[in-house]
């Protein structure tokens, strides 16, 4: 294809000289530019049907921070021989691991952080999308719709809360409401169930907060809500229950290939051999592909910030609501503006406001800033004007991992035959994962069979991962009975979320062996309430130390090095 026209347009628009090269799979860009947003915009201009974009345009003067790697160095994994090595413990990797345990295979999942769900899977709003925003058939739509349909079943098996309570896109003009008929038609064509337009009266009844300005809404009943990190944890735990190995604090630092195959995977905990490698590395998926000599797409990190509201704030809505297009933005209708964002009632009954989308050069920069905070609050509180800034009790950022084509890549590599890519997984990744994980497991199994490896069903596979006990949800009688069995369930440690010592001890002794303060928080919500751990954090740290038989000085917040305390008193010297 001739890219001269685009190159000229780039020069005119951005003043940047781009060199273009292409092969059968990708368009490769190189050059230099002094603005990151421009680099991303330029990359998008080269997206063409059937090809990926590899964007190597460098940001002038930018010194990329080194990737965060575990402090741990040992040889715990060295010499291991695995049928499948999965790289990355986000929702994709953990779901794929679990689906693969349906077969009798030796499965290793490596995750560089000290827990799973530490990337985008742990820092999104947990919306299980209906798929109403997707315009054209693509993998996002295929797996999004399929994933949404099986979500209830998957969450039941894995003991994770899921609430299918729908979403409302609010319209403040009749014209927009009329135009939304096109979206309903498209949604129906795409197999999204029950999408319809509701009128003024119905929306006012469903959500009184919008009654002053809403003339109607687009209602998608299949939209649901899940705790994305709890689902990821549940997938990982079920995988372990069924025989997979999850190795945390384990980063892939290199690979060896021979005859168009990955032969060895090198980590900070030793080198392992693998029959098949699955790349679920999120924002690093292109880097992992590169390690295997198979770089044909680029990930451009896109940060989103969400604000968490005090669940007891007075101005919160009943439903998940977002503002639909206004007359001004009508031309953009359906271009993504109606997706996800808004005021979201999460699976835990909290409220999230957000997210935004900011292109950033650093893949691991999950820091928050006041600009994003202001943007998110300003934009998403419009639909619910009763919300106050003071209602925000926490905020966080996650970094999405889109490709320039903005679609998932779920395929076995054309160049490295035993490498399967699960890349470009961004929204609706949480929704889609249960569906694509099954397909990925199929791709892996088919490949292994094709090279003569027997892939037998795992007769001991148990799809059920028991739901953790939550004492506050129990009726008095059951709670009393449980406490009589184990008095620790009667000792409340986290007062905001009412989490008992018994629950915390169970969380500390989880199947993945994660014994960190944030690990406990992700599992049982201790420290997630309005005091944000002010009261319970020292107690949780102390429980971890006692349960694991270590000194409190060894207890970390999260990854290695994030120790809660630096030593004992009477020991510090200036």
């Amino acid at each position, binding site marked *: 294809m001739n890219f001269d026209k685009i190159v000229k347009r780039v020069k005119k628009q951005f003043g940047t000289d781009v060199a273009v090269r292409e092969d059968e799979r990708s368009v490769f860009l190189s050059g230099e530019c002094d603005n990151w947003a421009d680099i991303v915009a330029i990359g998008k201009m080269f997206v063409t049907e059937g090809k990926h974009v590899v964007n190597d345009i460098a940001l002038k003067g930018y010194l990329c921070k080194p990737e*965060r790697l575990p402090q741990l160095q040992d040889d715990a994994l060295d010499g291991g021989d695995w049928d499948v090595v999965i790289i990355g413990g986000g929702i994709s990797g953990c779901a794929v691991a679990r689906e693969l345990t349906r077969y009798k295979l030796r499965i290793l999942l490596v995750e560089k952080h000290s827990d799973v769900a530490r990337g985008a899977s742990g820092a999104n709003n947990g919306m299980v999308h209906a798929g109403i925003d997707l315009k054209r058939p693509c993998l996002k739509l295929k797996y999004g719709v399929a994933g949404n349909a099986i979500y209830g079943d998957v969450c039941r098996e894995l003991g994770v809360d899921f609430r299918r309570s729908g979403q409302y896109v609010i319209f403040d003009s009749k014209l927009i409401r009329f135009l939304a008929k096109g979206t309903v038609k498209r949604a129906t064509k795409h197999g999204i169930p029950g999408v319809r337009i509701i009128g003024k009266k119905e929306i006012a009844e469903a959500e009184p907060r919008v009654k002053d300005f809403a003339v109607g809404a687009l209602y998608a009943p299949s939209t649901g809500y899940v705790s994305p990190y709890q689902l990821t944890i549940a997938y990982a735990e079920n995988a372990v229950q069924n025989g997979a190995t999850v190795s945390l604090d384990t980063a892939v630092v290199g690979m060896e290939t021979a005859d168009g195959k990955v032969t060895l995977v090198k980590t900070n905990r030793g080198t392992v051999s693998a029959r098949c490698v699955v790349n679920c590395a999120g924002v690093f998926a292109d880097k992992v592909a590169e390690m295997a000599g198979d770089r044909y797409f680029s990930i451009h990190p896109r940060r989103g910030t969400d604000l968490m509201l005090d669940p*007891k704030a007075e101005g919160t809505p009943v439903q998940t609501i977002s503002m639909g297009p206004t007359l001004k933005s009508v031309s953009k209708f359906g271009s993504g503006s109606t997706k996800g964002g808004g005021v979201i009632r999460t699976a835990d009954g909290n409220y999230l406001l957000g997210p935004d989308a900011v292109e950033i050069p650093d893949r691991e920069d*999950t*820091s*928050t*800033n*006041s600009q994003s*905070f202001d943007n998110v609050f300003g934009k998403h509180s419009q639909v619910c004007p009763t919300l106050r800034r*003071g209602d*925000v*009790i*926490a905020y*966080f950022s996650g970094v999405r991992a889109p490709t320039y084509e903005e679609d998932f890549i779920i395929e076995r590599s054309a160049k490295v035959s035993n490498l399967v890519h699960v890349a470009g997984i961004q929204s609706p990744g949480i929704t889609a994962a249960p569906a694509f994980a099954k397909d990925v497991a199929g791709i892996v199994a088919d490949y292994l069979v094709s090279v003569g490896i027997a892939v037998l069903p795992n007769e001991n596979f148990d799809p059920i991962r028991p739901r953790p006990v939550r*004492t*506050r949800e129990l009726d*008095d*009688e059951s*709670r*009393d009975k449980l*406490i*009589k069995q184990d*008095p*620790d369930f*009667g*000792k*409340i440690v986290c*007062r905001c979320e*009412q989490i*008992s010592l018994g629950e915390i001890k169970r969380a500390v002794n989880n199947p993945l062996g994660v014994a960190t303060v944030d690990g406990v928080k992700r599992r049982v919500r201790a420290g997630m309430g*309005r*005091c*944000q*751990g*002010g*009261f319970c*954090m*020292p107690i949780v*740290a*102390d429980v971890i130390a006692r349960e694991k038989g270590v000194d*409190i*000085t060894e207890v*970390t*917040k*999260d*990854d*290695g*090095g*994030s*120790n*809660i*305390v*630096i*030593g*004992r*008193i*009477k*020991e*510090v*010297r*200036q």
Partner: protein
Amino acid sequence: MKYDVAVIGGGPAGLAAAIKANNEGASVLLIEREARLGGILKQCIHDGFGVVRFGQKLSGPEYADRFIQELRRTNVQVSLLSFVTRTVKRDEGYDITYVSAQGVNTVHCGKIVLATGCRERTRNAIGIHGDRCAGIYTAGAAQNLVNILGAMPGKKVVILGSGDIGLIMARRLTLEGAKVEGVYEAKPTPGGLTRNIHQCLKDFDIPLHLSATVTRVFGSTRLEAVEISDVDERMRPIAGTQRIVECDCLVLAVGLIPENELARDLGVELDPATKGAIVDQNCQTMTEGIYACGNALHVNDLVDYVSESGEIAGAAASHGGKRKLKPITPQGKLLYVVPQRLDVNAPIDNVVMYFRVSCELADQRLTVTAGDETVFTKVYSKLLPPEMERIAVNFDKAHTLDDFTIRLEDK
């Protein structure tokens, strides 16, 4: 089980309330969620407690122990490690359900005294941005780590907020060998008591930076540095004033908020100024039979006053009668006044009132009126926001028991 009075919270307010209610003849249940009585005093090992009440400078545990010893001589039933999960209004009194290591228990009580203390504002409440690393703690959490668990939260420390806990922790961490780089305060005046500025900072050469705040934190695993910015009079950061201070620990002493989860569940009307319940002079809330005291009512500066309001609540809860409530309207430069109502059916000859101002004021006159009569007046040469003021007013002499005001104005 049935009790006349259930006191929720076994800190200084709850201890005083339980003892007083018992001594007034009521049967009392004291419910405490932790394993030991004393509340936050357990970790306040510094001195300065009890100057008003005992004329002595006690440590927190010593102060609490005086009440705990006294409690032992009463018939108060104490339930430790007990967490109230539900309160339900009955025709007469309330049912309280709580969980403990023994199971789930429901008791009936005539009156409830809420002595649930306060909680700290967090990093998120004041909009600090940046990385999510270890080493950022509220002052209370840091104090717990040091004084209860014997562990050091850091060795190069920045403290944000010059409230008393911030100042106390600056000294405490210094005594344990840490280097406190400085105490930063967004307001133009210190948030803590003057005596603490001297005893905790000046005596240890710890710098206090006013009108400056932490605007960003840096660190991939543990805190590595913070960004400090000067702020304008509306406490907004001033661009271009940012500087980086290296540290491995940030201690936040950025304010306390009365803990009112249970009050909310009970539908108790709250005062937006105090964030605690609206009460009459007997600490009874606008919900009949529910009393509030101590830091759950409003954040006190001295524990002595916490105990005092506990005693008022405990005494009143063991008696009580039909109320006739009249508002006390604050006027002028008052941040808040407690009580907000006067029960003119109850004794009004010695009404204890507490108030605070929001900024430093000189040469002020405080006047309490009933109708157009002045029933109390006092001149203050200086009023400081950190220092709560207490007055005792005799309304008995007033001819009309209505139109109560409390006014602060230039002398």
